[in-house]
C-alpha cells in the first residue's frame, strides 16, 4: 500500500494516485499541473482489492449487524455507524500489517 501523497505513476494504470496538494479536484491532469512522469520507486500502486481488505470490510459489516441488533440506536445512527466502520477498517488493517511485519 502506498503512503498517501506519493506521486507514483504506474505505466499501466495511471488513474490511481492522490495528488499531494490542493490541486486535488481542480479537474486537471498531472501534466497540466506541471507534474512529470518518472519511473516508480516503490512499484505500481495496488489497484485491486486484496482478500485481506475485503475480509476486513466483511468483518466490519458483520460486527455492525450483530452489535446493531443489541445496541440499536446507540450504534446504528448516521454518525457512530460510519465512524465504527472507518475505525474498524483502519485498526484492523494496522493490526494485520503489524502482525505480518512481526512474523517477518
Amino acid at each position: 500500500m502506498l503512503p498517501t501523497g506519493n506521486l507514483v505513476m504506474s505505466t499501466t494504470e495511471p488513474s490511481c494516485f492522490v495528488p499531494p496538494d490542493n490541486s486535488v479536484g481542480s479537474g486537471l491532469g498531472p501534466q497540466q499541473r506541471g507534474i512529470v512522469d518518472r519511473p516508480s520507486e516503490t512499484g505500481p500502486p495496488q489497484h485491486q482489492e486484496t482478500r485481506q481488505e475485503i475480509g476486513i470490510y466483511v468483518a466490519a459489516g458483520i460486527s455492525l449487524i450483530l452489535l446493531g441488533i443489541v445496541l440499536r440506536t446507540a450504534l446504528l445512527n448516521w454518525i457512530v455507524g460510519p465512524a465504527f466502520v472507518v475505525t474498524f477498517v483502519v485498526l484492523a488493517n494496522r493490526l494485520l500489517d503489524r502482525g505480518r511485519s512481526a512474523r517477518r
Partner: protein
Amino acid sequence: MSWAAHELESYFIQKHTKVSVSYLAILIGCLLPDMLTKLPVYGIKIGSFALKADVPFQYHRGWPGAGFTHSLLFGLLVAALVFRVTGSREWFLGLLLGQWAHVLTDVFDSVGTMVFFPFTTQHYTTGMWAYAAQQGRYGDAAAYYSSLGGIWDFLWLALALTGFRVFSKSYFFSTVVPADPAWGWLRRRFALSEIAMLALYRAFFVYGACRAISWFLWARFVDHAPLDLRWGGPYWVDKVVLPAQSWQSYLGNTVVGATGFAITCYLAWRFVLRRWWRAAGERRLGIAGVAKAVDVPRPSGNPGHD
C-alpha cells in the same frame, strides 16, 4: 420516512451522474433534510432537558414546522449558498441532487413531502408504507422494517450493488477524489491515510446496508413485529394519514407549486447562478492556464497519462 435508502442512494446517484459531481456533497444532500429534524421527531432527553415535537409528522414534514427542509426549493437555496461560498460546481450539483433525491424518496410514505413549498403546502405521497414516527424510534423502526419500507431499503441496496465498481479503489482515486477538493482537504487536515480515506468513502454504504439488515433482523427476532408487505402497511401500526382531498384542489395546488418553482429556478439561474457558474468555469480555466504555463517538457518516448 426512509431509513437506509438515504445513505445508499448517494452511491447510485454518483454512478449515474454523467457530469463531474462531488460524492460528499451528494451524501450531505441526502442526509440534510433529516440532520436536525429527526431528534425532535423522536424526542431527546438529556438530564432535565427534553425536546420532542407535539405532533411529530407536522413538525417533520409539515408547515408550520420543519417540513420546508423536505422541499425542492430548500435544496436549491442550500446548494446556491454553498456554491457562493466554495465556488465549486461539483458541490452545487451534488447537494442539489442529494437533497432532491431525499425529498422524492420520502414521497413514498403515508405523509409524503411538501415538494413545492413555499408555493403550496400540498403534500405529495404514494402511501406505500406507514409513517409512524409518532411511535418513537423503535416503534417506527419496527413498523418500517415490517412494511414495504424495508423492501424499499433493500431495493436501494440492490441498486447500489449493481454499480459495485463505484466501491473499487481505482474508481475512488480516479473519479471520486479528483472531482472534489474536499478529499484533499480532509486528508491534510486529519492526516488521513489512503486506507482511511477509502474507508470513509465506503463507510456509508457498509453502514446503510448493515443498518437495513440489522433493523430488519431486530424487528423479526427481537421485537417480533409481524411482517405486512401490503401497500400502506403494516396493518398493526397507528399510522398517520393526511385528510382526503379533491382532485381539483390537488391539481390546482400542483399547477401553482410547479409553476412557482419553475419560475424561481429560471430567475435564480438567469440572474445569479449562471454568473457564478461562469465564474467557476473561468477560475478553473485560469488554473489550467497557469498549470500549462509551468508545465515541464516531458522526456521523449515517455507515454502520457492524461
